[in-house]
C-alpha cells in the first residue's frame, strides 16, 4: 500500500510537483498520466527515495521513505524511465547482482529463473545487455524490478520501445502482478492505462488535474446528448427539420461523406435523449439514416482537455457516492 500526502518538490522557484495526495491500496493498479514534464517521474523518484521531497510524506506499506529509507526501499521494485542496466554484464549476471544488491532471501536459482520466465528473458540470459534490442533491455529492466518479489511495484513507462506483441504480454503480466502487488504505472499511452489500470491520476504542471476510476473518467465525459448522424437527403432541409427537435442546441452539417450523404453533428441539452426523434424525422421524410453514433469523448479527449487547461468538471468518486445517496433518499 502506498500513501502519499501533500507531496511537494521545488527546484528553486520551479514547482515540479505541488501538493499531490493519493492512496493506492494493495492489489490495485494506479495509472499515472500526464504530458512530458508534468511531474510523473519526479513523483515516482520521490516515492522510491531517489530524490527527497520538499515537503509532504510518502508512506510505503506504512514506512516513511525519508525516515526509514532502507526498509521502505526494500518493499519497492522500481523500473525507472531509463532502466538502470550495466550494459557490460550478461543478463544473468546482472540479475544475480541485483539479487545480491537487494539482499534477497528467496532461493536464488529458483527465484531468478522464475523472474526470467515471467519477463521472458531466459532465452537471452547469457547475452551481454548492450547487444540486446530495446525491447529486451526494457524487459530486463522489468525483471530487475521484480527481483525479491517486492509488494510494491513502481513502473515508469514500462512498455516504451516494445513491439505490439510484447506490449500485450507486458500488460498481461502487469495485470497479473496487480492482483497481489500494489502497482503504480506511468505512461502517456492512454489505451494502455485504460486497459491495465483500475484508477487514473492525471497530473499536469505538477498538480493532480483529475483522479478517478478508469470507468468513471471515461463515462463522465462521454455524453449521450451529442450525436453524429449520417443521413442521405437534401442537406438544408434536413438541417431545418433536425433543428425542430425539442431541446436541441445546435445542428451542424459536416462534409459530404458519400454522394448526397452528409454527416450531421447534433447537440442537445444535457440529459435529453434525441436518438429516437432523429429516427422519426428521418423516417417521416424518407431520408435513409445510414448511421448514428454518440459523439463520445475518448480518454484521449479527456486528457487533452484537461492538460490543455480547458478544465472539464469531473466529479470525483466521493461526490458521486454522495449524489447516489441523495438520489436514493
Amino acid at each position: 500500500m502506498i500513501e502519499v500526502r501533500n507531496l511537494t518538490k521545488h527546484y528553486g522557484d520551479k514547482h515540479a510537483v505541488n501538493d499531490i495526495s493519493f492512496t493506492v491500496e494493495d492489489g490495485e493498479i494506479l495509472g499515472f498520466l500526464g504530458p512530458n514534464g508534468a511531474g510523473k517521474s519526479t513523483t515516482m523518484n520521490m516515492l522510491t527515495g531517489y530524490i527527497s521531497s520538499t515537503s509532504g510524506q510518502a508512506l510505503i506499506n506504512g514506512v516513511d521513505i525519508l525516515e526509514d529509507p532502507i526498509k521502505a526501499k526494500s518493499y519497492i521494485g522500481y523500473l525507472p524511465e531509463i532502466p538502470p542496466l550495466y550494459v557490460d554484464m550478461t543478463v544473468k549476471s546482472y540479475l544475480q547482482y541485483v539479487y545480491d544488491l537487494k539482499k534477497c532471501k528467496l532461493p536464488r536459482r529458483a527465484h531468478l529463473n522464475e523472474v526470467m520466465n515471467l519477463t521472458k528473458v531466459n532465452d537471452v540470459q547469457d547475452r551481454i545487455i548492450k547487444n540486446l534490442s530495446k525491447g529486451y533491455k526494457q524487459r530486463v529492466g522489468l525483471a530487475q524490478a521484480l527481483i525479491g518479489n517486492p509488494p510494491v511495484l513502481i513502473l515508469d513507462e514500462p512498455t516504451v520501445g516494445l513491439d505490439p506483441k510484447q506490449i500485450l504480454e507486458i500488460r498481461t503480466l502487469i495485470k497479473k502482478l496487480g492482483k497481489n502487488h500494489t502497482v503504480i504505472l506511468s505512461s502517456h499511452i492512454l489505451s494502455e492505462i485504460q486497459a491495465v489500470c483500475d484508477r487514473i491520476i492525471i497530473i499536469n504542471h505538477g498538480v493532480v488535474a483529475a483522479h478517478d476510476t478508469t470507468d468513471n473518467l471515461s463515462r463522465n465525459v462521454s455524453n449521450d446528448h451529442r450525436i453524429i448522424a449520417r443521413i442521405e437527403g437534401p442537406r438544408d432541409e434536413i438541417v431545418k427539420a433536425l433543428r425542430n427537435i425539442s431541446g436541441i442546441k445546435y445542428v451542424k452539417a459536416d462534409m459530404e461523406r458519400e454522394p448526397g450523404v452528409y454527416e450531421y453533428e447534433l447537440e442537445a441539452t444535457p440529459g435529453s435523449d434525441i436518438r429516437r426523434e432523429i429516427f422519426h424525422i428521418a423516417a417521416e421524410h424518407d431520408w435513409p439514416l445510414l448511421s448514428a453514433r454518440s459523439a463520445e469523448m475518448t480518454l484521449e479527449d479527456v486528457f487533452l482537455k484537461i492538460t490543455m487547461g480547458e478544465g472539464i468538471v469531473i466529479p470525483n468518486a466521493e461526490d458521486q457516492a454522495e449524489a447516489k445517496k441523495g438520489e436514493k433518499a
Partner: protein
Amino acid sequence: MGAIFRREFGAYFTSSIAYIFLAVFWIFSGYFFFAGCLVSATTDMSRMFQSMFLIIIFLIPILTMRLFSEEKKQKTEQGLLTAPVSLGEIVFGKYFAALALYTIALLMPFVYALILSGFGVVEWGMIFANFLALFLLGAAFIAVGELVSALTENQIAAAVLSFIALMTLYMIDVINNYISVKPINTVLEKLSFYRKYYAITCGLFNVSTIVFYVSVAVVFNYLTIRVFERRRWS
C-alpha cells in the same frame, strides 16, 4: 556492500581498465626496480618506492574516474540509490573495489623483494614499512579520486580533475617554498603527503603518518557520502 564490490571489481576487468592499470603500474615499478636495485646491485628498494609516488598520481585517477561518473552517465545510479542499501555501503563498496585492484598491483613489487632476497640480505622491516606507506598513500588518493568522480558526469573530466587534485597535494611542498608566513608553513608541512611518505622510504617509520593517510581516506569517503546526501535533498 558485497554485491557492489563484486560488480565494481568485475567491471574493472570487463572494461579493460584493470589490465591497463596493472600493466602500467608493473612496467614503471619494474623499471624503477631495475634502475634502483639491479643496476646498482643493492637490496635497498627505497629508490623504487620514492619514484612510485609520482606514478600513482598518474594512475589512481584511471582507477577512480569511472566509479560514480559512469553510473550517472548510464543512469544506473538510480538503480543503486533506490536499492535497499545505505549510501555508506555504496560508497565503500566501490572504494574497496578500487583499493582491491590497487592491492593486486602492489603484489608485483613484493615479488621483486623476494627476488632480491635470493641474492642478498633484505631488510624486511623496512620493506614492509614501505609497502604499508605505499598502500595507505594509494588508499588516501583513491578516496580523493572517488570524491572527484562523484562530482562529475564524465570519465575524462573525472580523471583530469583527480589528477590535478592529486598533483596539488604533491605540490604542497613546492607551494610551501614560496610562502614565508610562519603559521601557514607549519600547517602546510603537516599536510604534506610527500614529506611523510619520503620519511618512511628513508626508514623513519612514524605512526602519525599512518593515522594521517587513514584519516584522509576516511574523510574523503565521508565527503563522497555527503555529496550523494546533498544531491538527494537539493
